[in-house]
Every structure is written in C-alpha cells, then in structure tokens.
C-alpha cells in the first residue's frame, strides 16, 4: 500500500541515529536543489544520490517501492506538462520530463526521511522547536494510526464483499455508490476509535494544565553537527553553481 513508503522502519543504522532535525535538513536540501535546477541530468543525479542513503539506512526496498508508486503520477505530470507546454510553446520535451522528475525527487526525499525517522522522534524535534504539543501530538498520532486504519478498511471491505458487494464493476457512478457500504462503517469505527483514544488520553492526565515535561531530550551530537555542515556546504555550492554558471546546453538537453 502507498503509505508504506512513508512508514518508519526500525533500524540501528547511522542514518537512524542522526538527529531528526538533521535528517529533515537533508531532505529539505534535496527539495531545494530540485527546485533550483531544471536540467534533467542534475535531477537524475539528485534521485540517484538518494540510493546510497536509502541503502545505508536499510530501507532501499521500501524507498524503491515509493518510486514505483510514484511512477503513475510522474507519467501523469509529464503528460499534462507535455500537452500544455511542449505543444503550447515549442519548448523542449525535456522540460515536462524535468517537472516529472522534480516531483519524484521531492516526494521520494520525504519518503526517505519518514522511512528512517521515528515519528515520535520527529514529534520531539518539532516540540523542541516550540511547536505546541497539541499540534505535534495530533501529527504523530496520525502516523501511529494510519496502518491501523488501513487494516480497518481491509476488514470492512472483506465483510461487505462477503455479502455479495462487488466493488469493481459497472460505471464510475455505480462504483462510487458502491463505496457507501465501506465508507459508513469506516466513519463509524473511526469515530468510535477516536473517542476511545480521547478517553484514554484524558484518563492519563492529558490537558492537566501543568507545564508539560518530557522524558527524552534530543541532543545534538558531534556527528550531527558534521553532517549539518556538510549538507549546508552542498546546498551553498548548488546555489553558487546555479547563479554563476549556466550549464552547458547538452547537459540540459
């Protein structure tokens, strides 16, 4: 399922141990770089540069499945851009391709981030950046319960299909109508679940009014500092490159 490419996978690699803020920075730099360049080769290099990272983090398989999942959307973006730009302006077909690849870089870099960052560590990082706990908690809870909800959808579909409901036949309207027997139980069980969760939170002193403390504290290690410096240096050189050189034409197709 699509969300798997964004679900944290436990591990003991260097990438896992890195401070979540540093990992976020790395992903962000990938995104910024992809926005700086529209040359296909650079975007391809950016994508490929993630391969050793994913492999070091032990999540190559999951990351590749994200890429696979993105393929359809990437083709769609390519097609739309092709129609509107290529035929419109007579620009090279390389541009639509670059747009599609840029999309791949942005999404897959976040996929990589979430694959090697435990959501509660991410939450902790946000919390220490003074984002209100309620917001952070809501966010980490979403991560916690996405797989649970996915399982729930599966159970509901199983139950309804066992009563003769055929989901994949007929025209679009008929198909949408046939989703109602899935939708209502899903809403009902989700409401019930959130009520139960809220009860359990309440019973454990949530919203006590006392200033909240935290068992853990993120500490920025020397290696985190080194990686940060390295990442920022790479960003700086990318910016420098962009501003001071125009890439040879053949690189940009």
């Amino acid at each position: 399922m699509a969300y798997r490419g964004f679900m944290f996978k436990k591990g003991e690699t260097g990438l896992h141990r890195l401070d979540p803020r540093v990992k976020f920075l790395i992903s962000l730099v990938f995104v910024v770089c992809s926005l700086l360049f529209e040359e296909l080769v650079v975007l391809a290099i950016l994508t490929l540069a993630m391969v050793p990272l994913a492999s070091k983090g032990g999540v190559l398989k999951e990351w590749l499945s994200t890429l696979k999942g993105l393929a359809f959307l990437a083709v769609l973006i390519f097609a739309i851009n092709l129609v509107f730009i290529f035929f419109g302006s007579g620009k090279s077909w390389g541009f639509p391709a670059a747009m599609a690849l840029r999309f791949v870089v942005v999404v897959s870099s976040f996929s990589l981030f979430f694959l090697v960052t435990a959501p509660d560590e991410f939450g902790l990082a946000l919390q220490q950046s003074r984002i209100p706990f309620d917001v952070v908690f809501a966010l980490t809870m979403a991560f916690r319960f996405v797989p649970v909800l996915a399982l729930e959808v599966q159970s509901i579909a199983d139950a309804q299909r066992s009563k003769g409901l055929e989901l994949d036949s007929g025209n679009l309207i008929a198909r949408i109508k046939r989703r109602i027997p899935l939708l209502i139980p899903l809403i009902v069980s989700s409401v019930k679940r959130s009520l139960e969760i809220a009860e359990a939170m309440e019973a454990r002193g949530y919203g006590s009014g006392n200033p909240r403390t935290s068992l853990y504290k993120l500490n920025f290690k020397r290696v985190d500092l080194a990686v940060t410096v390295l990442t920022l240096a790479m960003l700086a050189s990318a910016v420098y490159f962009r501003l001071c050189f125009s890439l040879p034409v053949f690189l940009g197709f």
Partner: protein
Amino acid sequence: MKTEMAAIEIRNLTYKYQNAEAPVLQNLNLTIEKGEFALVSGPSGCGKTTLCRCLNGLIPHFYGGELEGEIFVDGLNVRETPPAKLASHVGLIFQNPENQLFSFNVERDVAFGLENLGVPPEEIRRRVDWSLELVGISDLKDRAPWELSGGQQQKAAIACVLAMQPSIIVFDEPTSFLDPLTARGIFDVIAKLRRKLDLTVVVVEHRLEALAAHASRLILMDHGKIILNGEPRKILAEAAERLSLKVGIPSVILLHRRLSKLGILEGLTPLTTSEMAAQLRGVLNRD
C-alpha cells in the same frame, strides 16, 4: 479537602448521557473500602462501563450529560475534580488495548501520563522503570505497540496507569479482546499488584470463574442498578438461583447447587475447582 472516607463512595447516583432518553444508572449507592477487590458483572448494557467512567471523572467532565448524586473517589469529589487531577488517584484500564497506546514504543507511552502532569524527567525515568518491572514487561520497553500481542499490549496499558501511582485502579473488561489463557495472565498481574501495592481494585469482568476467588466483593448490575452486592460466595449462590441466564455463573457453582438440592453436598458454595473437589472427595470416598 481530602477527608477520611472509603476509597469509593457513591450516593444516589443517577446519570443520563447527553441526548439519551433514559438514564443509564439509576439511584446507585455503593461504598468500596480501601484495599478491597471488587468484582463487577452483569449483562451487556447494564451500566458497568458507565460506572467505570464515573469513577475517574470521564463522567461528567468528558461526557457531559446529567449527573445527580455524589461520587467520592479517594476522598475527592469527582464532580468538582478534573480528570487530569483524578488521574494520580484513580487509574482506568479500558477494554481495547490498542486504543490506549499512542506512541511508537512502550516506554514513551508509559511516560505519557507523567509528562502530562509535568513530573520532572528523572522522576519519570524512575517511575517508568518501576512500573514496567512490576508488570513484568521491562524487556518490551523499546517495542512498538503493533509488535506486541494483545496480552502484552494490555500489560503495557496497565504499566501506563501504574506509573501515575494511583491508589485505586479500575479495569473495564480488560480481557474481552484476549484469549482465555492470556486473560489469566492479566488476572495474575492484577492480583499481584493488589498484593504488593495494597491497591483498591475494581474489575468489571464476565469471566467470574477466574476471578471470583480473588475478589473480596461481588457486585452484580442489571438495568443501571446494583441488584446484588456482597461476599462473592453468597452472591454467586443467590445469582445461580435466579440470574443464571444473564450472568455467567461458574459451572462449579451450578453443579454444587444441583448436588446440594439433592442433599448430596452440604458445604459452602465453592469458588474454585479445588474447593469443589475437596467437597466431592468427602462425599465420594465416604463408605
């Protein structure tokens, strides 16, 4: 404003949920002394869960509705005390273990309540380790909730509540999602905690045969009222007589009843197979 009173004291409690037509609890009176082990049972829809919610302040603070009468828990007036404050006096364990664990590892979840109360980190660390140890799941502290079995999840939920060091713990059908032997494991934990910590324990449960022998008191509810309340042996004997279709009366008690009626057995109502076996041996081996 804490006064010397019973662990739980409920006077003339009537409660109606918001938008409900009829009250779920009707004129309920109940006193549970400190250190008691109260077992609550009754058919589904009898108001057991609602009663649990009244004990830790979810009713009326979370659910609203109309509450009449008085509820005192650990000397605190529930109506006037917010649930967050009640949390370190009375803990509540729910049916579904999955929905009580919000984090990505057990340790974080156990810390959650203490963090909410603003307990200093060193103290949190101490209490988290202590409660995990007591429940016997120290080795699971780094596991994610979905990597645990239902029984382990429920133990983790117990540790979460225990860390807040309440003097009363209420369990609302803690084993209804678990298989029978796993359920026994949970009951063992409950019995051990009570022994070690001198807790007051209230357990809502259908599986009377596994718990009746531990309980100091059995409370049977139906239609929002307490219909029987007292020493388990006495209550079960009475319930076997007129409630056997609604309440899961342990088979040994039903058998004892039948044999007593035939004049074969004369002893006390048994709570365990061992007690029953002892009585039967007496009869069968008499020459």
